[in-house]
């Protein structure tokens, strides 16, 4: 593209500013997940029994919880599992769902019919029930939570990907490639897939947020993850009983989830815009 970049920089609209802020937020949270030790002043397991339920202060930015843990530190360390739940379940759900969609949409016919009925089966059971049943069956481990959330996300990805496949399949450049003599696999790999992943990508960015939320819903229902360092959902769920006496315990992890999900969504919207060839060439 040959845009004069200086013009771009001058006119940074509010919504663009929003994207920049969102990107910074996400970057910071990812940094927290990778190297929490650099950011957190305390260890997340450190129980300062003489400093229970302290309100936010300079010493404890987000206050302390009923164990006497520094909530800021717990939130910082907890980002790791939260993000893991978010990212891993999206990757698993996206890959499996995407693959089903690709096969279904590209092959079509009876394969499509069968796969789509199977997806319908998954769709008829509300996501959280499926997750609940899986989590209950397999027990609450990080991986099982991820699995539960991922499975419930599969139908969405499969449908979107199938739709993409079907619409891309009929675009003229696919026929162009076929007329050149490219094989099905070549066309699928080199044209169809690259052109159809963008909605999947957008969905995935948005899915990170909903996965984290679903994880916290499972915590609330008592099927959450129990680890030394709680993820945000668990922390929020554990702290909810203290809302009237120590609002900070669940407010900060709650905000962490909300802000992260908002930021990811803003970026997802931006990804949608950037990946949309219509908007790119306009």
């Amino acid at each position: 593209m040959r845009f004069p970049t200086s013009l771009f920089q001058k006119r940074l609209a509010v919504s663009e500013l929003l994207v920049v802020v969102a990107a910074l937020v996400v970057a910071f949270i990812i940094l927290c997940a990778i190297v929490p030790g650099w950011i957190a002043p305390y260890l997340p397991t450190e129980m300062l029994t003489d400093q229970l339920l302290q309100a936010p202060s300079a010493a404890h930015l987000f206050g302390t919880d009923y164990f006497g843990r520094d909530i800021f530190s717990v939130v910082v360390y907890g980002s790791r599992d939260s993000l893991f739940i978010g990212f891993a379940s999206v990757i698993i759900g996206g890959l499996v769902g995407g693959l089903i969609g690709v096969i279904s949409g590209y092959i079509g016919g009876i394969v499509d019919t069968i796969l789509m009925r199977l997806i319908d089966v998954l769709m008829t059971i509300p996501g959280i029930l499926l997750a609940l049943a899986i989590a209950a069956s397999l027990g609450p481990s990080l991986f099982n939570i991820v699995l539960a959330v991922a499975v419930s996300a599969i139908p969405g990805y499969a449908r979107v990907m199938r739709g993409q496949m079907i619409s891309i399949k009929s675009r003229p450049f696919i026929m162009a490639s076929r007329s050149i003599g490219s094989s099905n696999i070549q066309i699928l790999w080199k044209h169809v897939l690259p052109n159809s992943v963008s909605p999947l990508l957008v969905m995935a960015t948005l899915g990170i947020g909903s996965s984290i939320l679903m994880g916290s819903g499972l915590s609330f229902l008592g099927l959450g993850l129990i680890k030394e360092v709680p993820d945000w959902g668990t922390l929020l769920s554990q702290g909810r009983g203290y809302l009237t006496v120590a609002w900070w315990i669940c407010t900060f992890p709650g905000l962490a989830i909300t802000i992260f999900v908002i930021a990811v969504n803003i970026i997802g919207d931006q990804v949608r815009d950037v990946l949309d060839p219509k908007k790119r060439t306009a």
Partner: protein
Amino acid sequence: MTQLLDIQHLSVDFNTKKGLLRAITDVSLTIQAGETVCLVGESGSGKTITSKSVMRLIDYENGIISEGNIMLNGIDLVAMPQKELRSLRGKKMAMIFQEPMAAFDPVFTIGSQIVEVIMTHQQGSRSKAWKHAVYLLQRVGIPEPDIRMKQYPNELSGGMLQRAMIAMALACGPELLIADEPTTALDVTIQAQILQLLQELKTEFNMSILLITHDMGIAAEIADRIIVMYAGQVVEQATVFQLFEQPHHPYTKGLLQSITTMDSDRSNKLYSIEGSIPSLSDLPTGCRFHPRCPYATERCVKDNPPLQVVNGRLTACWHAEVLVQCKDWSQKHLKVDSLDAPAIEVHATSEAREELVDGDNLFAIEGLSKFYPIRNGILSRNKTVIRAVDDVSLNIRKGETFGLVGESGSGKSTLGRVILQLEQATSGRVMYQGRDLGNLNATGLREARKNMQMIFQDPYSSVDPRWNVGDIIGEPLSVHEDLNTKERRSRVEELLEVVGLDRTWVDRYPHEFSGGQRQRIGIARAIALHPEFILADEAVSALDVSVQSQIVNLMQDLQKELNLTYLFIAHGLNIVRHISDRIGVMYLGKLVEIAPSEALFLHPAHYYTKALIASIPLPDPTRTREYIAIQGEIPSPAHPPSGCHFHTRCPAATARCREEQPVLREVGRGHLTACHYPAL
């Protein structure tokens, strides 16, 4: 005479991410009451913006009128607030658009959308408005208007919708009707009907028309005055006779010369203006046309010529006065002898080509059919099929160009796809050099594909937007040939050069090219493997006339150099005539006529062919076309009429035509037609 519309020194800017962008600069034009003015120019020259400025619709598209005046009947439109403008829009001035399907709200009935405009501007009851709407529909020639009123846009054909659109525009009796390419999306046959209708209505409603078109034929036919725009500026303004008699601006001259006429010498190259229209963000200095102008001087590079009176017309060229004196300038641009006059000399070259009538067959197509089943309801037992291609037999000879014409939906593209085995035929055979392509296995077919390539209508959507040019052109090479990256790159660069593109552009992406350039990319890809045969499906239809000529020339050059055989599908009959050796005419999946190019145009045997040819607007204002043009629209291919499919629209149809399906039979040397009563 009073000016109905008076635009003075209009400049329009757009607020974009890149800052302010001036789309049109210092445009002045006037329209008198009862006058038809045509606005012509290449795509992107600012025609639509000008018309939308009049309606002040650009306000909604981040557009700002930064300079100038627009007066409608003495009312200043520029200063007027939107609220008051609304009472003028639809009432004093109305607009019709290019894509009638897109211009209607899909979720409301036609009737309610017409009634809506009446109710917005006039007091009165709904039932009165409804009655008026019915009258209007009837007036624009829509049969059964009462039923149509209650139908939704998707239930009407394109031609029908354009009529409805016109009815809607006329609802409040506007003084000015702006029509932005009202017929471009329609078939020639329908186009002729619509143009005729517009002219009738103009007098009946006593209004002025501002018609935007890029078809000089249409302008010649309908305009009183023509305004030529280039890169956001008016470059010439003259009466239709003045303009066609002697264009003063080199751009106008170029445009007129680019037109492929019915008598253009098929052995000659088509004239074309070099290069393409500049982008608004990157305008040349001085006269904006100078980079493409063969007469450009230093002055043209430095200073922008004003629109000034030269020989009783307005033109914006420093050298107009001098140029028109030149000898080669004053050569007549258009010479249209009467079509039915048989006196056109047969060019020597075409005679030579005539031999091809008996040449070697590259393709022998026998009884080819392609039916598409359509589902109506999941349980519905009575399967309906669309007979997209119905029992077509023809031969394509080595080295020739076989043209295929016909209205939209007649099955041209489908036939092309089935020949190339991109789709499985329902029945029939495609023999390629004696081999039945239908019997090949996957690898055999892929091998065969090396020899058969395709160029597509839309140069943009037929390339993967995520690939750069090098990859796009290199794709056939990487599929079929074992080359390393360097070899492939150098081959791609060669190909770029062959199709007239810069070899350094390999890393660019499709969206960074103009339409004509993109089509060259498509051609480069098609010839990469040195194929024997190329299917060009509407390969030039989406391009501007000047660019069309460039591409057609290129294709012809390549044909000579590489000894290619073309199947050239198009709906622009002029172009087909120019490029093709033989032409087939399709109607509702059937091949109704095959003939050598000249013979077809001189002696069309089938009434459908005749009608098609008669529908072509002639770029000569001195001749008025007689409207023998076909009535009605193409029937649905799912339920084709009995007997001769064309009988419903044929002036010569008899009872026999209704019952008996005619077969192709020879009516002249190499001239076949499927008509019981050929018009020879």
